[in-house]
């Protein structure tokens, strides 16, 4: 850097350290009000990309204590913010300019919406007087994002814009979480104001009642008491409601087996005797047997996604359904709830827990569930002379790391192996794209997770070769910020899940799923400034993992796995969970 170069933000802050540390931003205009609103909300990190219409807001960040992480692409910013929220339990913040900046955020906002993740997006907009004129970099951002946000706002006044940002923040984490967006015309950001935005306050009427109706609780409890085969189904809502302790206490008190959904992974430790891991399309055989044969399904914080239920007609067909959810609209949306309990998961689980007088007799049922674990083991073969099995790689990483290690993934086969063969023990350690199924989520999510995690926690991104190609530019961010993350690419040179479906349902016609050529990811990582490994054989796995974990910075291991490896069990789309296939010829 030449001696005339302007200081970086960090240098500038260091030189003013004695006066400016932990001083909240002074409000002088719309932009400083926006930044002050974020500070009042306790925001410490924001992810984004600069650009014309958002420049005033970025300028206000110069003097703020908020750490901004410049991402390579706005999609990366939205995924990083999303994962930051998943790991930290506080909403993630992402910023982008108008037009392409805002539209590039869309995938991450939609992803957060499908997974009910709290996320705030702040987008620049052309000046108010140019809105509607098809100005340079103008997009109808509130129009585009209306269906994928909990609510969005078009800021129209410098005096109130700070309060609006605070409201958007509060709303995103109130009740059922979800993304919110504030569109910020440049003149509103520039406009003078001295109005402090105050503490973030959700809009009136948006805060739900935590406790469920007590008569409804009594009716549900009666159903549990008379059940012979009760089963808990814990969704991502249990983690979002910080209700894992209540969930664990409940199943242990009454000896009720539990399955989770994919977003619910970590609710109950997967090595717990009562835990059957997760159910659904690629869930364990034992989870799917249990959900098929239960006579009383206690579902908490789940929206009965089709990847969980399989065909509606054959889903838990003999079960009375107790559905605990904070969002009344989820009750009987996909699966009819015989006993709807609307409220906060932790509160309602305690209500139910305390109201049970005669616990159901579950000994035989628990034994049956354990027997299914033996009947449908997740074992695989690892012949030394055959290509590397992806399951082996996942298990090797799990063994080499602590229980609090955070796993992020892209979407596809690698995601399923990472969820099946890693034994998750704690909430907020599994970070993935479930509802939207966004390939490319893994690397930016690992970056966001890294900023939210404790320094002692490892962050591992399992990625597919296809998923990694979609957002790998974010590796530049990991190098620049010297983030200690490890990317494990399970490389089969296919869009593997599509290839698996083509083999099963399209007569093996590998249309547009076969890459034939992949970059050498280890060398590419080195070119980015990260550490790279390539692994082809079983005997190289342990060393590469050890090296990557020891390296204090971003590392990439390109595992060349068996290209024919497929994900099982598999419930074909719309099929019965109990009829999961264990091999291709069963499909």
């Amino acid at each position, binding site marked *: 850097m030449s001696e005339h170069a302007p200081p970086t933000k960090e240098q500038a802050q260091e030189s003013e350290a004695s006066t400016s540390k932990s001083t909240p931003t002074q409000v002088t205009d719309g932009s400083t009000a926006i930044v002050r609103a974020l500070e009042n909300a306790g925001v410490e990190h924001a992810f984004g990309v600069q650009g014309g219409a958002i420049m005033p807001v970025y300028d206000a960040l110069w003097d703020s204590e908020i750490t901004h992480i410049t991402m390579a692409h706005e999609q990366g910013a939205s995924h990083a913010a999303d994962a930051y929220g998943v790991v930290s339990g506080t909403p993630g913040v992402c910023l982008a300019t108008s037009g392409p900046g805002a539209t590039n955020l869309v995938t991450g906002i939609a992803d957060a919406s499908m997974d009910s993740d709290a996320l705030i997006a702040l987008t620049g907009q052309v000046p108010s007087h140019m809105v509607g004129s098809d100005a340079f970099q103008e997009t109808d951002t509130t129009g585009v994002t209306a269906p994928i946000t909990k609510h969005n706002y078009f800021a129209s006044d410098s005096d109130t814009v700070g309060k609006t940002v605070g409201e958007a923040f509060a709303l995103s984490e109130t009740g059922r979480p979800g993304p919110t967006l504030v569109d910020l015309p440049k003149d509103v950001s520039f406009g003078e104001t001295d109005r402090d935005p105050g503490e973030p306050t959700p809009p009136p*009427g948006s805060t739900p009642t935590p406790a469920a109706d007590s008569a409804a609780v009594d009716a549900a409890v009666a159903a549990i008491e008379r059940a012979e085969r009760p089963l808990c189904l814990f969704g991502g809502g249990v983690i979002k409601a910080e209700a894992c302790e209540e969930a664990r206490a409940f199943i242990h008190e009454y000896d009720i087996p539990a399955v989770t959904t994919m977003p619910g992974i970590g609710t109950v430790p997967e090595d717990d005797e009562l835990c059957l891991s997760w159910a659904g399309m690629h869930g364990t055989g034992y989870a799917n047997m249990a959900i098929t044969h239960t006579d009383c399904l206690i579902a908490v914080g789940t929206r009965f996604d089709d990847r969980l239920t399989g065909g509606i007609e054959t*889903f838990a067909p003999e079960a009375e359904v107790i559905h605990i959810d904070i969002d009344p*609209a989820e009750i009987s949306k996909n699966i009819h709830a015989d006993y709807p309990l609307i409220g906060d998961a932790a509160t309602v689980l305690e209500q139910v827990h305390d109201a049970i007088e005669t616990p159901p007799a579950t000994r035989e049922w628990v034994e049956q569930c354990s027997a299914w674990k033996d009947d449908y083991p997740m074992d695989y073969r690892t012949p030394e002379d055959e290509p590397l099995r992806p399951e082996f790689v996942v298990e090797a990483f799990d063994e080499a790391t602590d229980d609090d290690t955070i796993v992020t993934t892209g979407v596809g086969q690698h995601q399923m192996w990472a969820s099946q063969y890693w034994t998750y023990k704690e909430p907020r350690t599994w970070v993935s794209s479930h509802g939207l199924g966004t390939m490319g989520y893994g690397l930016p999510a690992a970056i966001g997770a890294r900023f939210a995690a404790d320094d002692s926690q490892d962050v591992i991104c399992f990625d597919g070769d296809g998923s990694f190609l979609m957002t790998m530019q974010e590796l530049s961010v990991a190098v620049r910020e010297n983030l200690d993350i490890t990317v494990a690419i399970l490389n089969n040179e296919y869009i593997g899940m599509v290839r698996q479906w083509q083999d099963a349902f399209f007569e093996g016609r590998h249309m547009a799923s076969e890459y034939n050529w992949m970059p050498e990811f280890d060398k590419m990582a080195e070119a980015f400034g990260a550490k790279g490994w390539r692994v082809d054989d079983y005997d190289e796995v342990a060393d590469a993992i050890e090296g990557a974990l020891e390296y204090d910075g971003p590392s990439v291991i390109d595992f060349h796995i068996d290209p024919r490896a497929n994900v099982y069990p598999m419930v074909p789309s719309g099929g*019965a969970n109990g009829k999961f296939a264990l091999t291709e010829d069963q499909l």
Partner: protein
Amino acid sequence: MSGEDHDNSTPPKHGLAGRPPEERPHPEGRRTSQGIRIDPEAEAEPRVRQAVVSALVENEPGVLSRVSGLFSRRQFNIESLTVGPTTVEGNARITLVVEETEPGIEQVKKQLAKLKPVMSVGELDDDAVRAELVLMKVHGDEPDKVHAITQMYDGQTLDAGPRTITVQVTGNQSKIDDAIDAFRQFGIIEIARTGQTALARGATPTTPGEEPAPEGTIADEPQKPQTPAQHSDD
């Protein structure tokens, strides 16, 4: 349900060990496509019915597109939608006529209630007061007959000229349908229907918790329309 000896020690080369699907027990029960467990004694096809749903909303920019976007995104069947201000400054009432199954109507109401600008949602009873307005432009060849039919339906002539006559009829949906049928004989050139709007009968509030504007703040009575209007097409 489990039992017989079964060899799980060696998984297949590609895939997992375990009993194949046809050798597993499967429960007899079923659910309907709406996720309701089927009672074999009383199995019935889901019936579609018409519901009038009233939503009290904050009259902010974009509220109508949020509501209509919700309907298209979730594929709710909507027959009509009307919107207009209430006596409370900044509020508007949206009246929706939907045709859905019972769970579908519940979803409509719950999803509407989740929209931030929507303050309150209610479904109107069958005895609710409903009305719709239609404007019809018909050929003006037989003005006396048009006038007679208009009177029959308590309508008004809004515009009359040598070539066209435009009339207005208000009432419930079936009255409007009948009136349109009756006017067909003259040849309907253009038609505009507002869709139904409705209020609950008697003291029942149309949407739960709804309160009128405080005394003295009610907006001025709307002006009575002047009829008949001046000729416009000669």
